[in-house]
């Protein structure tokens, strides 16, 4: 007689009971605290700057670092819906954002930018927030498409977040349903301007007006 092993009964996961998520709730980082430089870095740069002729070094270094930061934005690969197809087309050879220094990176720990490409559901929103919080500061978010901007055609669905700006702070809104790669490319160039503005002034510029 053939013996069948018993089917293991796996209890249903309840998200709020997971210890890792509880710790993440405690350690959650929020702007603007995350945008500050460390005090050691500030004291070193102040010291160089106050040295005679040192301002040439710091401004030249600032300009160089600004150029480097805005030309090496690594977006975390985070495709949510059909907009992700256009995002992939933007990353692929024809539009080739790698000439802007953008490499889609499969880890939030090494990324500077999150492109929210698609409808955010209420079940997905905590996971999106978690990935966003795993990214190191300073970090940027592009809301791509009508769904991420405001909910889009699914705005009155029971499960849809009415705009990803209710979950994370957004720097650039890209309108369209879905936005073509040119449109996303324009949004990424706007984001480069925003990054340059932030590195010049230490303040985030207001996001571009939301059109959808």
């Amino acid at each position, binding site marked *: 007689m053939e013996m069948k092993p018993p089917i293991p009964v796996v209890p249903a996961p309840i*998200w709020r009971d997971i210890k890792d998520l509880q710790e993440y709730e405690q350690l959650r980082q929020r702007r603007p605290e995350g945008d500050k430089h460390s005090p050691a870095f500030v004291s070193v740069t102040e010291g160089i700057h106050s040295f005679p002729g040192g301002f040439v070094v710091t401004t030249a270094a600032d300009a160089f670092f600004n150029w480097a930061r805005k030309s090496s934005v690594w977006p975390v690969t985070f495709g949510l819906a059909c907009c992700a197809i256009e995002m992939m087309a933007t990353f692929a050879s024809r539009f080739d954002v790698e000439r802007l220094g953008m490499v889609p990176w499969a880890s939030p720990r090494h990324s500077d930018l999150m492109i929210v490409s698609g409808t955010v559901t209420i079940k997905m929103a905590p996971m999106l927030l978690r990935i966003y919080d795993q990214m190191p500061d300073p970090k940027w978010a592009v809301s791509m498409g009508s769904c991420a901007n405001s909910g889009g055609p699914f705005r*009155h669905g*029971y499960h849809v977040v009415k705009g990803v700006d209710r979950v994370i702070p957004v720097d650039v809104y890209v309108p369209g349903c879905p936005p073509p790669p040119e449109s996303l490319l324009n949004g990424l160039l706007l984001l480069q301007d925003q990054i340059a503005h932030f590195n010049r002034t230490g303040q985030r510029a207001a996001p571009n007006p939301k059109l959808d």
Partner: protein
Amino acid sequence: MTRERAVTLIAERFGSAQVQGEAPLVVVLRPEEWLAFARFAKDALGCRFFSFSTAVDWKEEGLEVIAHVDNLDDRLAVVMRTRLAAGTTTCASLVPVYKGADWMERECFDMFGIRFEGHPDLRRILLGDDWEGHPLLKSYAVDTPHPPYR
């Protein structure tokens, strides 16, 4: 198993059931015949493939449960329909007959709040565990708030 043969067998066994349509064959049942007809469809009609199960909210007339089963060898499709009485949310589960009904009935419970009696593991499948209400019911208001997200 032709359509005529199936209609004859259904009329012999379930006299009160209405049979409509060509393909698929629609059988309107009473709620208490639900599980017995599923057994009959699997054994006598040879419908061994469970396609899907869903429900319709007819507001004050009550809920209607629908299941679609197939006999793939003889190309016979049977749609089982039953109207629950107004205010009733319990229905017999088809999981003892069709294993494939498990997740379909969980989804039905999730969206319509129908409690399938005899289901081994009836809990939400698509929505979160802490969700309140059943969103595909007509009484579930559009734009029901769900702080902080909507």
